[in-house]
């Protein structure tokens, strides 16, 4: 579990996060959503320690990450896997070497064991055949999957994904979402995803934090969103007529489902 307690962040005079508190739950896909400039990327960078916060605390399973000595911080970081927006694969290495890199750096296993683990991860993301290719030779969706394989190779406790669907077609996007969701539930990870993608919100959002102008505006699950009365959240999530119609239909379906359940209970 990751807890953010009254975190504050400003760049000079510009306050990005005035005072945010949130909890990212274990075994769930936690989403941070919000329009551009709402502070969600800054929040994620503060959580992983790429940016220092100006006030408040970040707790990883109760351990204060903010005031930790550097060495302890490194130990926590070794339990973090991160998928970057642009995948951040090492250009000069093959797919296999990219996934192998964290193992080479931190694992004391034999080369054979490491190779087996790499293949296991690549198989998990369905990329075993691309092991010998370089990042320049594979598609954007494949790069993201390699990024996921690299992020999970050390069996992390926490998985962070910065806009995992950006620049992907809807089908690949769904595949990535499914993969992240499966991995999270299978390994009981604390997954935090920063996204704009409505499919991700509706399909994967076990726990959602909606950010508006640097503040936490709303918190709940993907089921709660359908019935939420928060205007700002509704304007953001159901921005088009098509999405608003889809929301009404989903509400109807959920009501009908509830009626059927009640009827079945009575019978």
């Amino acid at each position, binding site marked *: 579990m990751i807890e953010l307690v009254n975190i504050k962040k400003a760049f000079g005079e510009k306050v990005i996060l005035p005072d945010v508190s949130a909890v990212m739950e274990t075994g769930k896909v936690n989403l941070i959503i919000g329009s551009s400039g709402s502070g969600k990327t800054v929040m994620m960078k503060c959580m992983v320690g790429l940016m220092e916060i100006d006030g408040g605390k970040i707790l990883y399973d109760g351990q204060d990450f903010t005031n930790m000595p550097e060495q302890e911080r490194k130990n926590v970081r070794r339990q973090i896997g991160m998928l*970057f927006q642009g995948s951040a694969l090492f250009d000069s290495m093959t797919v296999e070497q990219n996934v192998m*890199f*964290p193992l080479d750096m931190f694992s004391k296993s034999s080369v054979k064991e490491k190779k087996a683990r790499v293949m296991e991860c690549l198989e998990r993301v369905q990329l075993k055949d691309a092991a010998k290719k370089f990042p320049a030779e594979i598609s954007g969706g494949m790069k993201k999957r390699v990024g996921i394989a690299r992020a999970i190779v050390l069996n992390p406790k926490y998985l962070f994904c910065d806009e995992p669907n950006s620049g992907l077609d809807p089908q690949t996007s769904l595949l990535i979402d499914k993969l992240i969701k499966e991995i999270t539930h299978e390994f009981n990870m604390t997954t935090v995803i920063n996204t704009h993608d409505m499919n991700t919100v509706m399909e994967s959002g076990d726990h959602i934090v909606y950010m508006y102008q640097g503040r936490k505006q709303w918190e709940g699950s993907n089921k709660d969103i359908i019935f939420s009365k928060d205007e700002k959240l509704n304007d953001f999530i159901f921005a088009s007529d098509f999405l608003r119609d889809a929301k009404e239909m989903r509400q109807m379906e959920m009501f009908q489902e509830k009626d059927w359940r009640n009827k079945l209970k009575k019978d």
Partner: protein
Amino acid sequence: MEFRFFHHFGSYLLMLKGMFSRPENMKMYWKEFMRQCVDIGIGSLGIVFIISLFMGAVTTVQIAYQLVSPIIPKATIAQVVRDTIILEFAPTLTCIVLAGVVGSKIASELGNMRVSEQIDAQEIMGINTRGYLIMPKILASLIMIPCLICIAGFLGIWGGLKAGEMGGILSADQFWQGLRQEWKPYNIFFALFKSFVFAFIIASVPSYYGYNVQGGALEIGKASTRAVVVTCVLILFMDYILAAILLQN
């Protein structure tokens, strides 16, 4: 302007300080160090070969052109060529060229890694990126660049010998005789000392500019150019300082 200088200088010192921590995996650091040795040393051999040969040849021809007096023996040409190449041309000119070749490569490599979040990815894994990415570059430069300068010195003098022979300026015997005249072993110490100082500048200054790039492809190009310019200016400045301190009779 002054404040910007102090800001950069302070950040540069902090970057150097940040390199020193216990390596996460010594084997990986060694691998990276060897890769840098090959990139910096073997990768620059071709250009060092070419510039030092021509540098020696041109020096011989120009000195012969200037020393036209019949009372000056021809062997003096070789003596002047030797000292010019060892004291100045091999270390300074070679390092200016290396600042362009190696410096821009280091700055753009690190800049690209920063912009494409590869450095962030390594930081999150718990790697000290200054130690893993910058330290091997500096150590590799400190070892390979003095070697390149020794090669440049030998080739420069050999180029001078050949140019003298082929141009009918002086014979090989006269050249060898000149090379042995008034020989000061201290000059070698001076050239090597300079090469260590320049090697440190060539690796660390572009590393600073590349590591701290912010923005996109355009900024990588700008950082690369700035790194080469600052490196060249620092090399020339240190060249004067070292000459003023170490070459006093």
